[in-house]
């Protein structure tokens, strides 16, 4: 008996029997942006803010993290074990995620992470499990996500972002793209910020 796999592949081949296989993809669209560094940062800030997220540009990201947590009233905060010391504010109970279970994460007031890269045009931050980012659940389950973005990690366009992330995909690392706080438009297509993911997103651009 033919396996489903072989049957499907045979159907595909039969369907394509008289089809030329060469289809050229022409990548004539913009592969990179044209703004200078300051312009890219400015666009990123504007676009993240458009999602109703909080954006701070800071030359002292540690202090910015501290004030973001204080402003949110977050006391017990999850971090990755390898989060940079300078991003760990004093006076807050920092809990390193050494395999916390989902309920532990749910009991936290927030999480502080870094990110891998970011895209200005779409106001997107990308998390790929690299240094300071932790596993995906850390920046998902708590209701507040404070994310520190190195200014030089911000690219202008989506093709540049995908190019920056491709090595992580090849290594099999999971990636999450975050563009603003969680939202739904399911009720009358009216956008409501905050459903299951963190309802508050604070993005700190470290210059």
């Amino acid at each position, binding site marked *: 008996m033919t396996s*489903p*796999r072989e*049957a*499907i*592949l045979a159907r*595909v*081949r039969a*369907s*394509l029997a008289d089809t030329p*296989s060469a*289809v050229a*993809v*022409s990548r*004539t*669209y*913009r592969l990179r942006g044209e703004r200078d560094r300051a312009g890219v940062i400015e666009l990123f800030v504007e676009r993240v803010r*458009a999602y109703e997220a909080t954006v701070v540009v800071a030359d002292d990201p540690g202090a910015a993290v501290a004030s973001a947590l204080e402003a949110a009233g977050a006391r017990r905060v999850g971090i990755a074990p390898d989060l940079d010391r300078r991003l760990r504010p004093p006076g807050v109970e920092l809990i390193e995620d050494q395999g916390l279970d*989902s*309920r532990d994460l*749910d009991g936290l007031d927030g999480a502080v992470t870094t990110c891998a890269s970011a895209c200005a*045009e*779409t106001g*997107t931050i990308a998390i790929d*499990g690299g240094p300071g980012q932790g*596993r*995906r*659940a850390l920046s*998902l389950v708590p209701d507040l996500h404070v994310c520190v973005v190195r200014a030089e990690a911000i690219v202008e366009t989506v093709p540049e*972002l*995908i*190019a920056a*992330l*491709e090595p992580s*995909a*090849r290594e*099999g*690392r*999971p*990636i*999450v*793209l*975050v*563009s*603003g*706080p*969680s*939202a*739904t*438009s*399911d*009720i*009358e*297509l009216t956008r*409501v*910020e*905050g*459903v*299951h*993911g*963190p309802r508050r997103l604070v993005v700190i651009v470290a210059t």
Partner: protein
Amino acid sequence: MTHSSLDPAAARDARPESFPHAATGALANHQVRANIRHATTSIRRKRAGVVAEVPDWELLRAAGAAIKDETLASLDAVLIELEASIQAAGGTVHWARDAAEANEIVVGLVRAEGAEEVVKVKSLATDEIRLNEALEGAGIRPIETDLAELIVQLAGERPSHLLVPAIHKNRVEIRDLFRERLGRPDLSDDPTELAEAARLHLREAFLRARVAISGANFAAADTGTICVVESEGNGRMCTTLPDVLITVMGIEKAIPRFRDLEVFLQLLPRSSTGERMNPYTSLWTGVCEGDGPHAFHLVLLDAGRTRVLADPAGRPALRCIRCSACINVCPVYRQTGGHAYHSPYAGPIGAILAPQLLGEEGAVASLPFASSLCGACYDVCPVLIDIPSILVHERGKAVARERSGIEGRSLKVLGKAFATRAGYERAQRLGRKLQRPLARDGWIAHFPPGPLGAWGRSRDLPALPAQTFREWWESRDEPA
């Protein structure tokens, strides 16, 4: 939470109706029509705004179409590469020829895990194969976690829109549903409060879930990476927290390269929700030690897709990335909503995809005629599917299959008559003669049954004038 026994949609499906028939019923529901008009008007405006700001939009559309065509033209190789990449990354790949096979695989995997419930991310593929019914039949409780899918599931209905399955319900109706089904008599109709109620209701389900089921927006063959785009975070919850993740995906969702996401992640969010980027995009590659599920299963679903592939004229329908832009601009959908289409795929894309997937049989056979061919769908399609042309192609298939009624016979007779000048002019004279009992004061306002009667239910018709243009032209040529 189940909807198998009292599902009005299921009862209706047992008695297949044509689109015109179902549409007539839908038109009577003024509340639903008002809800849909309101929602589609707002999404159209948003989409137009964020598309206009992309200077290379047309180039992206062309590239999106080309990548999809490239995939389809070598789909066997792409699927084999995808399978190998996922296996290399610790995932398992299953193949399902049809809905029954896919459901059997999924039920088997859930049972092997000993789970009695699963959390689900909104997935058209699983709607299409009616996975929830199969799970319920096996004693497994599916929990829809997308807000709109939850609304539809709680109401015991079927989705009416690809992207916003509860588009037919307004906030007051949702409030009433949540008051009753979530035991929250305190709720107001504020969307923020309703979303909060869903959050509380589902959080516990996410935390205890052992198995999750998702669909896929894209699957990159070279890296084996699956991509799910979403807004609420329920997708992230489902693909991150449970022990086992099962993804059911139509075979046409594969793309050759991870890099191709640079095109689709621009086209999709702007076309679908009218955002520059959707809030969350999850990309995972097999399993990752210490982060997320420890087992990942991909179910590759045919269920008619190879049938679509076999017809070169209908094949571009498989480019579809399920953005729903065509639905939101469709003047027919705007009047009827999605239920009249008898398929999870409603609107213009549904009208070309559903009949092809199902072999042009049953309730969906009339869908290719459910269009005025206005072309608004083609204008907005991010992967340049010429939907009007495929509708016409599908009409031809329907006409060739079913021997004609009065309309078909009339068109055949006219076709023959118009083949010669004499026949054409004879038809003109005959028309003038036949209309005599009907025409009054230059108009026909009362009609015999049949196509003319259908016209006459809401419109008068000018009577044929005493002189055709060509008769006037000839009289003009005569010397005065």
